[in-house]
């Protein structure tokens, strides 16, 4: 745990009254190591540790507080500040999405292969049904993965949410036609489950841009695997450049991954982390709480 890592570092400094340029070096190095071991991307780590260093040097050591404890508090608070976003939850703790009144709200899921988009689409539909009394329509826009449409249909059946499927058209066509089907069917939310794609696949990135262009989503979520390592800095940047992302969802955080990708995605895209996936089941979706993830990343 970072606190135990710090006891040795701060044993050297504890004799001093102030945090100085010289004695802070080891502490900052310890933070850097902890974050890299937690899979936070190198560029994000460098930026963050520099911010922490400046903040620590700028503060007076509080009376009665050990410098080490004060330093850890600075790190923890900076981490929480980085990852949190104001006004994302209402007073009931529900995620405040950009719901529209004039037409169905469109939510688009995008991300790399296997990140959890299809499963999360179902979880989100159930969440909106239960917490917001919405009447969602799931859209099977992955027409390339074998049995992807079947998978979403089984998911939809399990949670009592209808699925719009059209195995004959192209993904942008399917999504566009789904909007009309949603209107006709009295659905107030449409969730587009798209195919997994590499950010370096030009054709598939063009396709997902086309889907966004034709459906004008109110929310576009980057769905990212919580076990992702250094590559998160590249994939998050590319998806953020190609699509007007409005948020991110980090999945599979029920494992023992430290979850550094959460910090990377937030830092690189600047977009709020809206939810985290914490199980394979349809109720395995939680609204994001920065302080919980901060503790996990710091170990």
């Amino acid at each position, binding site marked *: 745990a970072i606190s135990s890592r710090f006891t040795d570092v701060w044993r050297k400094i504890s004799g001093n009254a102030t945090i100085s340029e010289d004695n802070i070096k080891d502490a900052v190095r310890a933070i850097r190591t902890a974050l890299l071991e937690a899979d936070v991307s190198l560029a994000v780590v460098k930026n963050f540790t520099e911010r922490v260093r400046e903040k620590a040097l700028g503060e007076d050591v509080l009376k009665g507080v050990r410098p080490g404890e004060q330093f850890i508090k600075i790190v923890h608070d900076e981490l929480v500040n980085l990852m949190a976003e104001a006004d994302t939850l209402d007073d009931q703790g529900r995620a405040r999405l950009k719901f529209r009144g004039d037409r169905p709200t469109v939510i688009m899921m995008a991300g790399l292969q*296997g990140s959890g988009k299809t499963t999360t689409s179902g979880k989100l539909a159930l969440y909106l049904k239960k917490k917001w009394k919405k009447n969602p329509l799931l859209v099977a826009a992955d027409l390339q993965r074998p049995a*992807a449409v079947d998978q979403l249909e089984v998911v939809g059946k399990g949670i009592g949410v209808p699925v719009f499927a059209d195995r004959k058209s192209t993904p942008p066509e399917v999504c566009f036609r789904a909007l009309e089907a949603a209107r006709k069917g009295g659905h107030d939310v449409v969730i587009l489950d798209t195919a997994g794609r590499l950010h370096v696949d030009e054709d598939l990135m063009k396709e997902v841009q086309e889907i966004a262009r034709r459906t004008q989503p109110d929310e576009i979520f980057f769905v990212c*695997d919580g*076990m*992702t*390592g*250094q*590559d*998160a800095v590249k994939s998050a940047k590319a998806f953020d450049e190609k699509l007007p992302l409005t948020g991110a969802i980090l999945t599979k955080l029920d*494992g023992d991954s430290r979850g550094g990708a959460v910090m990377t995605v937030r830092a690189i895209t600047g977009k709020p982390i809206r939810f985290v996936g914490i199980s394979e089941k349809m109720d395995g979706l939680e609204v994001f709480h920065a302080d919980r993830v901060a503790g996990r990343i710091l170990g």
Partner: protein
Amino acid sequence: VGLGQKIDDDILEKLEEAMIEADFGVETSGFLMDVVRSAWKNSTIETTDQVLPFLQKDLKHRLTHRGNALNFAKAGPSVILVVGVNGAGKTTSVAKLAWYLTSIGKKVVLAAADTFRAAAVEQLKTWSQRIGCEIVTGADRADPASVAHRGAERLLESGADVLLVDTAGRLHTQKNLMDELRKIHAACAAKKIEGAPHETILVLDATTGQNALNQADMFKQAANVTGLFLAKLDGTAKGGAVLTINERVEIPVKFVGLGEGVEDMQPFDADQFVDALFD
């Protein structure tokens, strides 16, 4: 990197950062930097242009000295069990292995032992139809071990050469699912096939960070993993975690996944892999 330029701390720092960015992890990167620094100290390498080739040669040796070939039964048919965490690429990799084995003249049978996830059997069935190989399936929510067992029985009665068993994604931290995996592993032998499964492949997503080490450790304990299939290497992730797994858990890489089609795969080529690490 100038020819004949003396090695300095600057170039060494750049090298360590490149390893971190390739998902080697802090500990492994540090260990390898010690190896490089010793070589510098005893003058094995002196100039900056010698640093990377030295490290790459070292890495290539580490990744290959245990051998990277698939294990087959000494006599009779073989069983290959495929495991890994959710979404890593197992089902697609099973299809790729089926295609690969068929291309080298082996008759393959598949066992769809993921009886849990939505449309998992449908997904593998589609692949078996495209490849043209037999598939053994069970009822929805059937005991996965029973499907693996029937797969082994079908392997024997059909005279096929290899059985590939696809399993459900599971996190190595889920005790009940890892216990289930132990049962599946035991069922692969169907009590008649000696040494089965002859190969247990852990499919690892190349984008996975340091958690890959925990995965390798726990899956090896539960199912005796003997090889890695590094999937999604066609992306930008370098897959450097396999080096730590190779050193600390002693599991070699046997195949890499390079796309979503059955032919998008290759037996592991350490030269190609190591050269690409520092691109």
